[in-house]
């Protein structure tokens, strides 16, 4: 134990070639054993109830039968093969990706002006906007979805208004459709988009815009050549966040889309809770996770290899 610690200590100090004075201070550092003791409870808790369950369903996804007692259970890829050869699941995966992409796009279009306004506003206004957009995140998603029911049902606010204005003759199906799910998801995760973009807008050196304005660039040119490209990292991380949250959202698609929009989370829930197909449901869960990670990787990679790669440093 003591030897291991000494070795560890050396490993940490050696490559940096610290000056003697700092080394002396490093030696005087507190022992970290009490810290490890404090960490024990939380590490054990998360290991037992988070890591092990996650690994357990990964293991189950490779078992070909639902007989969990072990009899007749055998390792195979059959769950994954079924999933990738059945057009129902492939279509569900495609619908999920499509809806998540469109939700990110809506959140980006609606969120960018908010972020831009926050970046230009006084500290007081900025704090107020932050409070207004972040607070809904602390209200249960079912309540926000119920608000959309009031607004979007056939006899809801939006349809009534449009019919009174004579713009439509019969109510539109806004709820229980892909449009409804996209509205619900973009609404739920828009605050994350704004906060991500605002962070990258703060990092832009204001003298850049001043300089280009002095050199005669119009405000529009200024925005397109300076602000927008330099805020790309925020846009990318905002889109990644909204996309991944949308990919695995269950409540909003279940309430705003229902049976008409069979996204993966709704399909997975059905397999686990109604059909009790645990091994297949586990495989679906990991395919959902894998698809999300792969999409995010490709998307981020695409931007980092583009002509804007410098801004991602």
């Amino acid at each position, binding site marked *: 134990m003591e030897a291991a610690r000494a070795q560890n200590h050396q490993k940490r100090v050696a490559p940096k070639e610290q000056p003697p004075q700092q080394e002396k201070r490093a030696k005087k550092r507190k022992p970290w054993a009490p810290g*490890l003791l*404090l960490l024990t409870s939380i590490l054990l808790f998360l290991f037992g109830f988070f890591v092990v369950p996650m690994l357990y369903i990964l293991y189950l996804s490779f078992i070909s039968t639902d007989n969990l007692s072990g009899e007749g259970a055998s390792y195979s890829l059959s769950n994954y093969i079924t999933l990738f050869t059945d057009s129902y699941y492939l279509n569900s995966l495609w619908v999920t990706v499509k809806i998540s992409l469109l939700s990110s796009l809506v959140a980006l279009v609606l969120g960018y002006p908010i972020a831009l306004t926050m970046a230009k506003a006084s500290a007081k206004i900025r704090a107020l906007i932050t409070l207004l957009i972040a607070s809904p995140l602390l209200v249960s998603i079912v*309540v926000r979805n119920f608000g959309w029911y009031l607004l979007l049902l056939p006899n*809801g606010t939006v349809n009534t208004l449009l019919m009174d204005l004579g713009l439509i003759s019969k109510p539109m199906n806004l709820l229980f459709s892909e449009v409804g799910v996209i509205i619900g998801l973009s609404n739920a995760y828009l605050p994350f988009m704004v*906060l991500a973009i605002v*962070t990258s807008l703060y990092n832009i050196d204001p003298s850049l815009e001043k300089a280009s304005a002095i050199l005669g660039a119009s405000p529009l040119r200024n925005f397109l050549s300076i602000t927008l490209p330099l805020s790309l990292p925020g846009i990318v991380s905002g889109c990644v966040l909204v996309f991944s949250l949308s990919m695995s959202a269950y409540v909003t698609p279940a309430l705003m889309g229902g049976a008409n929009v069979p996204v993966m989370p709704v399909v997975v829930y059905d397999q686990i809770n109604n059909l009790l197909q645990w091994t297949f*449901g586990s495989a679906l869960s990991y395919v959902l996770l894998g698809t999300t990670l792969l999409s995010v990787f490709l998307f981020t990679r695409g931007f980092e290899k583009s002509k804007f790669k410098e801004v991602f440093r």
Partner: protein
Amino acid sequence: MNAIGKLRGALAVIGIIYILIPLIAVIPASFTKASYPSFPPEGFSFQWYTKILERPEFIDAFMNSLQFAVLAALFAVIFGTLGALAIAKYDIPGKSAITSFLTAPLSVPQLVLGIALLIYFTPLMLAGTSIGFLISHIIICIPYVIRLVLTGLSGFDYNLEKAGAILGANPWTVFWKITLPLIRPAIISGGLFAFLTSFDNVTVSLFMISPETRTLPIEIFSTMQDAYNPIVASVSSVVIFISVILIVILEKIHGVGKVFGGGHH
């Protein structure tokens, strides 16, 4: 320039209204006189609030939600504060990896976490029990406590602890009289955040419930799936009311935006 500024402001207002409109619609709708909720409401009455009292399932669910949220927040605060203290105070090898691990439950979709816990709990006889429910909620609350207490400890002056020790206080006294009071605001905001996270949760809860452990969001969720019941408007308004009170307190202590903006990665 001014025209562009106005356009930007107008678009921002539209975006903010889009974020807030579903919540804005719920409260007036709950006071409707009609048998059918609508926004804007028809007339004014408290009938949908008094009707909550005739529905024991909502009252029971509300009490369950409160109890689970208080307990989940309490355990998350204990685990999280100990963890954050250890990370901030001691030079533990692999510190950043440990921090990422402790906040990892935030990066795993709640749907997948719920499934994993249901399947894991079943042979352990924990599925559908209060203990299982509580464990699942503690897991989703821990990352917020860790994050908030770590932020609270980042400006902590350890010389104060040293001074206390030099003046003869034992480690226990130093903790109670110096460390704890100084990080109390961070612990309180962590606890409030954990409370709301648990109180609002639907996705993980869906896999943990039993007839005895139904919570308020679950009750709202299943009522909405069955029929368009006007009582949901008044129950939802109660949820909004509770959330607003806690948000005001949180904003005073910590700033609501910081928790979500402080690196969701």
